[in-house]
C-alpha cells in the first residue's frame, strides 16, 4: 500500500497517549500504550472483550487517570474539565435517565457546552423530532442509540468518542447512524470509535488500531491491515481433495485446510495460482468460491495466538509479511460480515 498510514501526521495530534499504563488490581488493562490521533482522522479501535478498548476511551475522556504515562486531549490533560469542551461522547444506551424526556436530556447535555446545536434541529437530524416529549425510558433500543449518538454531537465537538455505537441495531438504524458519523467526519470532525462489531469498523474507519491484552497489536490504514493478512479464502466441493492431507500434498501455497464431507475450505496467499493449478490438475470440482479476507478474519489472525508470532509494530510496518501468513490459524470466522 502506498497510502500513508497516518494522513495528517504533521498536524499536532488532537489525542495523544504516551507510554500509558493502567492497571486494575492485578490486571494490566493497558500496557505502555502510545497512540497519536490527528485532527480529522476516523480511527477504529478493535479488540476482543477485555482488550482495553473501553479503558483507553475512559482515559481520553478523563474518567480515569493512567498509572503512568500521559494522556492529552487538544494538548490538555482530559482530567481538566476545560479540555473536554471540545469532546463529545455517547452514553451507553442503558444509561439514559429514564424519567427525563428526550428533549430534556438533549437540553441537559447541551447545556454544558458554550454553543450547543439547537435541540429541535439535532432531534430532526436524527429523526427523533416526534419523540421530543417522550420519556427516554419509553424509547426503543434503536431510538436510544440514535439519541446517544446525537448527544455526542450536541456540543459541536472537534472530537467524538463512540463506544460500540450501533451494537444490537437493525440494518436501517445502523445505516442512519453510520451516515451521521460520516457526515460529522466529512465536516472535519475527528472520530475515535471502538467496536467488536468488525463490519462497523470496516464500513467507517480509515485507520484501524488493533488492541489486545492491553497492547497495540497493529495500527495502520484499513487497506493495509487487510493487506497484512493478505490471504484469500477458497471454497470448493471435490471428492478428490477431501482426503486428509490431499490438498497440502498437491498445493504447497495453501496455508490451512478444513474439510467437511466433500466441501473443502482453504486459505492461501496466492488464490490465482491455486486456481490455475487446480484447473490444470484435472481434479473434478464444483461450486468454486474465492474471496478476500474480511476484517474479522484479519483481526482474528492478529489476536488469536500472540505467543506464536511477533506483535505487529505500531508504526504500521507489518512484522508478519503478507505472504508469511501464519500457518496455525484458528477456525474460520463466523459468517457475520462475510457477504461484504
Amino acid at each position, binding site marked *: 500500500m502506498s497510502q500513508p498510514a497516518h494522513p495528517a501526521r504533521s498536524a499536532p495530534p488532537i489525542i495523544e497517549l504516551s507510554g500509558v499504563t493502567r492497571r486494575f488490581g492485578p490486571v494490566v488493562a493497558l500496557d505502555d500504550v502510545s497512540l497519536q490521533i490527528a485532527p480529522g482522522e476516523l480511527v477504529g479501535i478493535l479488540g476482543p472483550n477485555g482488550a482495553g478498548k473501553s479503558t483507553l476511551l475512559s482515559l481520553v475522556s478523563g*474518567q480515569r487517570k493512567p498509572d503512568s504515562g500521559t494522556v492529552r486531549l*487538544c494538548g490538555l490533560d482530559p482530567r481538566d474539565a*476545560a479540555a473536554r469542551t471540545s469532546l463529545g461522547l455517547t452514553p*451507553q444506551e442503558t*444509561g439514559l435517565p429514564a424519567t427525563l424526556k428526550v428533549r430534556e436530556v438533549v437540553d441537559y447535555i447541551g447545556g454544558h457546552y458554550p454553543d450547543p446545536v439547537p435541540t429541535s434541529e439535532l432531534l430532526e437530524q436524527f429523526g427523533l423530532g416526534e419523540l421530543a416529549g417522550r420519556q427516554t425510558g419509553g424509547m426503543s433500543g434503536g431510538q436510544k442509540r440514535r439519541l446517544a449518538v446525537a448527544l455526542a454531537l450536541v456540543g459541536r465537538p472537534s472530537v467524538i468518542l463512540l463506544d460500540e455505537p450501533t451494537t444490537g441495531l437493525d440494518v436501517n438504524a445502523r445505516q442512519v447512524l453510520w451516515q451521521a458519523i460520516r457526515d460529522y467526519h466529512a465536516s472535519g470532525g475527528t472520530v475515535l470509535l471502538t467496536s467488536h462489531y468488525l463490519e462497523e469498523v470496516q464500513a467507517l474507519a480509515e485507520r484501524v488500531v488493533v488492541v489486545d491484552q492491553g497492547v497495540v497489536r497493529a495500527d495502520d490504514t484499513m487497506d493495509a491491515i487487510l493487506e497484512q493478512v493478505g490471504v484469500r479464502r477458497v471454497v470448493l466441493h471435490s471428492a478428490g481433495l477431501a482426503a486428509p492431507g490431499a490438498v497440502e500434498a498437491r498445493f504447497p501455497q495453501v496455508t490451512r485446510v478444513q474439510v467437511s464431507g466433500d466441501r473443502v475450505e482453504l486459505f492461501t496467499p496466492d488464490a490465482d495460482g491455486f486456481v490455475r493449478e487446480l484447473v490444470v490438475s484435472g481434479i473434478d470440482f464444483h461450486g468454486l468460491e474465492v474471496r478476500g479476507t474480511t476484517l474479522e478474519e484479519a483481526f482474528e489472525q492478529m489476536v488469536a495466538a500472540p505467543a506464536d508470532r511477533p506483535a505487529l509494530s505500531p508504526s504500521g510496518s507489518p512484522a508478519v509479511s503478507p505472504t508469511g501468513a501464519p500457518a496455525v490459524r484458528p477456525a474460520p470466522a463466523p459468517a457475520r460480515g462475510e457477504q461484504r
Partner: protein
Amino acid sequence: MTTTQPRTLSTAHLTRLHLKYQFLETVRVPMAVFGNLLFPALSMFFFVVPQPYVADDPVASTMAVASLGLFAICSASLFTYGLGVAEDRALPFDPFLRSMPAGPAPRMLARVLNGGIFSLFGIVPLVLIGWLFTAATVTWAQLALGIVVLLVVSVPFVLLGMGIGYSLPAKAALPVVQLVLFPLAFAGGLFMPPQFFPDWLSVVSQATPTRAGRDLLVGALTGADVYAGAWPVLLGWTAFFAALTVWAYRRDEGRRFR
C-alpha cells in the same frame, strides 16, 4: 482548533442546569417524594397526636414537630444521597456526566440545593399536622427562621449522604446508611427528648450533628436556649462531611471490580 485556552461555562450556570434536571428526575418518581413525606407525618399521628401531655403542650408539641422534621431530613438526605449516589454511580450515565466539560462542583452544589428543596417538601405535612392537631404554635417570624435554620441544618446530612454514596457500592451503602441514621437520630434526641437521657448520653449527644441541629431548630421555633456548642458542632461536622465527600468523589472512578 483555536489557540485560545478553552474554558468551561460558569459554575452558576452549570449548577442551575444540574439543579433543574436532578429535580425533574426526582419528582418524576412520585413515590420517592411521597415516601419521604409520609413517614414523619405518620409518626406524628402515631406518637404525638394521641398523647395529650405532648399534643396539648405548645412547647412539647413544637419540639416534637422540630424533632420529627429533622428526622425526616436526616433520613431523606442519607437515603436519597447515600443510596441514590451509590446507585447512580453504578449507572452508565454517571461516567458520561462526569465526562462533560464541568468540574464536580456544579453537580455537588445542585445536589445540596435539591436536598434543601425536598427537605422543605417533607416539612409541609408536619407543619400542617402540628398546626391542625396539636397545640404547637409559632409566630410567622419563628416559622421563617425555623425554615432557614432547617435548610442550613440539612447541609451536613446531604454531605454525609454523598460521602457514603461516593465511597461505597449501593449494596454496602444501604446498611451503612441505616447503621448511621438510627443511632444518630436516637442520640440526637429526635425520638426521645434529650431531657430523659442519662448524663453520659447527654454529653455524647451534644457532640452529634443531629442534636446540634435539633436544638438549633427548637431554639429558632420556640425561643428556647440553645447550648453553646451547637453551632461549632454543626459547622465542624459540615466541614468534615464536605471533606469526606470531596475525597470520595476524587477517588471514585465509577464501578470498581477486584
